[in-house]
């Protein structure tokens, strides 16, 4: 099939025009001013927006950590269940994912409102009302709710491959439950953990929808800032592009760091 490579040419042209050129334009806008002259000013504007970026990174990290904390045990339980139970849990996990994520986020808006269902129920037993909507906590909750399956799935798919005989071997060699988890299951599940972290962290850090719906515009993230710079009342593509570039570079760096960590741990696991 050697001569078939021309079949990829429409794709190559498409990628060039609609993926490579747009990213080039982001760089171009990031390093030029309104008149098109070269400048570092946009990138240096990061100082002005540092608080939003910091908030995004912290909240994204907290949401990712919570997903890991909640998702890891479930992935483990799933991977050790019977085949039928695994299939059912998988389906139950994916079913909410079929609903648009705006609707999933909206469902929490109605629950967390000041006169929403949770406060309503708490009020009947004499508690509250608590102010939950439009807080950072609500945004983190929204991130965890929307992206939890992205953590569970990759961890489950590596854990599912851990053979039962490894558990038996660990037991025969005198490891208790805790040590089996620490020295057998955890090192082997690490690639899944790394992938899960990336898959939750990237959409969490860059979201503007969750922060707008559950944060009420008062808790802006870097995604909100970028969104406003592109479609807001006073657009500034240059600064918006610079912030996007910074966000992209930060994400690439964190992915690379995670990958390094993964490789290092893998050999460590083999030496164990």
């Amino acid at each position: 099939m050697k001569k078939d490579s021309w079949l990829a040419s429409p794709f190559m042209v498409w990628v060039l025009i609609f993926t490579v050129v747009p990213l080039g334009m982001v760089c171009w806008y990031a390093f030029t001013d309104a008149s098109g002259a070269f400048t570092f000013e946009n990138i240096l504007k990061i100082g002005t927006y540092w608080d939003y970026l910091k908030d995004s990174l912290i909240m994204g990290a907290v949401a990712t950590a919570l997903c890991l904390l909640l998702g890891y045990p479930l992935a483990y339980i799933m991977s050790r269940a019977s085949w039928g139970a695994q299939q059912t849990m998988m389906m139950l996990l994916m079913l909410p994912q079929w609903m648009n994520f705006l609707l999933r986020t909206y469902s929490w808006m109605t629950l967390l409102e000041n006169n929403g269902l949770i406060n309503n129920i708490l009020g009947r037993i004499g508690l509250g009302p608590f102010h939950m909507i439009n807080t950072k906590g609500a945004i983190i909750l929204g991130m965890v709710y929307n992206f939890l399956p992205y953590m569970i799935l990759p961890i489950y798919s590596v854990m599912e491959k851990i053979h039962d005989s490894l558990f038996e071997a660990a037991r025969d060699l005198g490891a208790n439950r805790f040590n089996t988890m620490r020295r057998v299951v955890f090192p082997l599940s690490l690639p899944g953990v790394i992938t899960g972290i990336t898959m939750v962290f990237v959409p969490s850090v860059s979201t503007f929808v969750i922060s707008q719906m559950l944060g009420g515009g008062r808790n802006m993230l870097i995604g909100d800032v970028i969104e406003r710079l592109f479609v807001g009342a006073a657009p500034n593509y240059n600064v918006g592009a610079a912030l996007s570039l910074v966000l992209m570079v930060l994400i690439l760096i964190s992915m690379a760091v995670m990958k390094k960590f993964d490789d290092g741990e893998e050999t460590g696991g083999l030496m164990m």
Partner: protein
Amino acid sequence: MKILSKIYTAIIFVFLYAPIVVLIVFSFNESKSRSVWKGFSLKWYENLFNDEMIISALLTSLEVAVLAAVFSTIIGTAAAVGLKSMNKRLRSAMLTLNNIPMVNPDIVTGISMMLLFVAIFSATGLMHPGFVTLVTAHITFCIPYVILSVLPKLNQMNPSIYEAAQDLGCPPLRAFMKVVLPEIMPGIITGMMMAFTLSLDDFVISYFTSGSTAQTLPMVIYSMTKRRLSPKVNALSAIMFLIVLVLLIAVNIRQIRAAAIKRKKTAVE
């Protein structure tokens, strides 16, 4: 220990489903309240079906999804076949480029294409931001999923059967249609369904690339949640959930979304 795992699993699934159940229950509420039950009513469903903006947005969403699925499947399948016969270095370079839209945050993909479309329009007057740019953007983010669905099927295939067909006098195109295509068909169909559902679901990229003339359903939902909330949104959620449930039972689309996440996962790795 067994009982603890069961309780834990139950808690997680309650967490995942409770908001959706509440959403659906209150779509039948008599009053506008989303927290106080005032009696059963179907009026929000009636309101929903009489809302022309929602119906036309639904149609736009479907049109975009069909076009995006068809074009990304054609381009992506051809690309997979082409990539297979490329030399290794070029192929891995192309696959890296292919991963970009999957790894990049949606907002970056969205604004980068927005910059391109704005530039094209102001330079040539072509591609006025609207339906055309929307479809173009959707094709762009769907292609990677099609390629990553078809490529494994091509790798599984024994290349000798294609050569054998040609040796036996079959012209290349016919050999491709008769021999290769049936082999990779499951991958093509998975890729196409993935493209269709991802396109229907997308909000962020559409939001930046559609201009003000074309509105998809997620975009209307977004603007509804920004203004005064109406239980119409609940009714819409309930209907969409029901459709998915029926489809899950009727057709085997169960794996599609999980498979889409897996594709993204391989790209991230």
